[in-house]
């Protein structure tokens, strides 16, 4: 135990790593030669101006897009050629920039859908819906963990934007992923929800790796251990927040406007 802790403090394990990652759309290089290492039990932020290629990097890492060049490995396994659902089953789970919930399902059902596969309750077409009730305990835990207890039976489409994002995080956590990729989890949220999510991310990262795209630099400063700055598809700077924010190139890229 103490040895483990000492280990993670000194030499955190690389769980997700990409080398020479590139993506070309026609003649446009969206991502150029990006190397990235995501460490276990750390929050890693990916920041950069609009159009820097952050979401494309996310899509490449989760295999929703096939990279033009480069390799990706997850927990030591090469996943460059695998399908996105396969990668998700290996423990790399993402959220989406535009909130991705199942709009006509209730909050409870949204979370239960995520729990069905790991609990081997996804393919039974002969069992009644009530067989899913045994997932309720775990689902309710997740729902109250993100503070959606009151909205448990609400239809997802009726939730506010911020609450939908919170729900999406709950469904992502339901898979107990090893690596979490969160695409702007706090965009468009009220201050209260931002606090809730920051707290959740911090907690989650005790046991797993988190890579997040985030525009709110205050949040980045508060909870992220490591920051990668992208610009025009290339890595501009890397390091902890203090180092990165002092970098003159980063300051120029942001033109001081978004400085918190």
């Amino acid at each position, binding site marked *: 135990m103490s040895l483990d802790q000492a280990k993670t403090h000194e030499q955190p394990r690389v769980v997700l790593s990409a080398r020479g990652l590139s993506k070309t759309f026609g003649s446009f290089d969206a991502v150029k030669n990006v190397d990235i290492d995501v460490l276990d039990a750390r929050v890693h932020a990916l920041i950069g101006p609009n159009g820097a290629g952050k979401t494309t990097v996310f899509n490449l890492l989760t295999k929703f897009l096939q990279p033009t060049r480069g390799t990706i490995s997850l927990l030591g396994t090469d996943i460059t050629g695998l399908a996105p659902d396969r990668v998700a089953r290996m423990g790399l789970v993402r959220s989406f920039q535009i909130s991705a919930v199942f709009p006509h399902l209730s909050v409870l059902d949204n979370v239960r859908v995520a729990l069905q596969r790991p609990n081997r309750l996804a393919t039974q*077409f002969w069992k009644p819906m009530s067989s899913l009730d045994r997932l309720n305990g775990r689902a309710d835990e997740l729902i109250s963990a993100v503070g959606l207890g009151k909205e448990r039976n609400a239809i997802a489409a009726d939730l506010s934007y911020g609450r939908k994002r919170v729900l999406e995080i709950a469904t992502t956590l339901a898979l107990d992923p090893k690596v979490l990729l969160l695409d702007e989890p706090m965009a468009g949220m009220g201050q209260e929800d931002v606090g809730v999510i920051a707290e959740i991310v911090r907690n989650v990262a005790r046991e797993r790796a988190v890579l997040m795209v985030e525009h709110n630099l205050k949040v980045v400063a508060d909870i992220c251990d490591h920051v990668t700055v992208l610009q025009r598809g290339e890595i501009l700077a890397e390091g902890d927040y203090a180092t990165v924010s002092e970098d003159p190139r980063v300051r120029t890229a942001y033109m001081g406007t978004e400085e918190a």
Partner: protein
Amino acid sequence: MTDAIDTAKTGSAAAPARSVGTAQIVILAAGLLFLLLAPMFLYPIFLMKLLCFALFACAFNLLLGYTGLLSFGHAAFFGGAAYFTAHAVKEWHLTPEFGLLLGAAGAAFLGLIIGFFAIRRKGIYFAMITLALSQMFYFFCLQAEFTKGEDGIQSVPRGHLFGVIDLLVPTNMYYLVLAVFVIGLLIIWRFINSPFGMILKSIRENEQRAISLGYSVQYYKLGAFVMSAALAGLAGGLKTLVFQFATLTDVTWQMSGEVILMTLLGGIGTLIGPIFGAGLVVTLQNYLATSDFPVTIITGVVFMVCVLLFRRGLIGEFYASRLGRKLGFEHRQ
């Protein structure tokens, strides 16, 4: 009664879309009672034809309404199974129940092949692949030995159900058709209200999200496709026993179009909508069969009126109406 409606309402609020309210049960029971008594005052052959097409439309709706896949080749399963069942009972002398099961199994196998290729594409491309492959099957049926080409398989014996019940007695045949129809509906109902059905629903709602949760959506779509094909096959086999022949008519692309029409008319994504759609189309065809006026023009006009005025289909509009919602029905948008 008001109490009953209130309970139905609160019930559905506590567990959305899962509870069956009192009003629904009453309506379903009335429908079943009607079908049980119908042969006393309606022509049995007409009723049996209607039930076969109703089951076909419900099977089709399993794919379109509950999975969001528009197949334009379902005639291959309906008509294919008609040939399989006809061949099995006529040449192999199987009892009708095994003939029906064999027809459904054959349709499921065809569904596996056609579905395997089609689910790789979406939307109009999906529809075109199913159309192309079902047309290939049509030409196979035209050329193959056992289908007897243009003649079709004629004078198919109805035989004895389980070796004892003589199906040449119209009442016996009618109740077999009704029983198979009800079983088919129950299978569909269970399928869409099961853990598997839940994943299908989530895929239809947000496919990307389902993938990111680790679901191999292709397998789920293929599963729904095969189930839909098998049930369409069950309907086709049943029709063969009723009419005692299997011909090319049931594998044509027009038949694929007709089932789409029935489903749209009745209401996509409602369990009983396609039954009414099929009822309407079959009734129109029956009553206009002797008139000089071409039936297709009438059904075409009905279809256009439906698309312009009742976009959700007859039953879909009823569910969405104030009366429908009062009775505790829900219609998903």
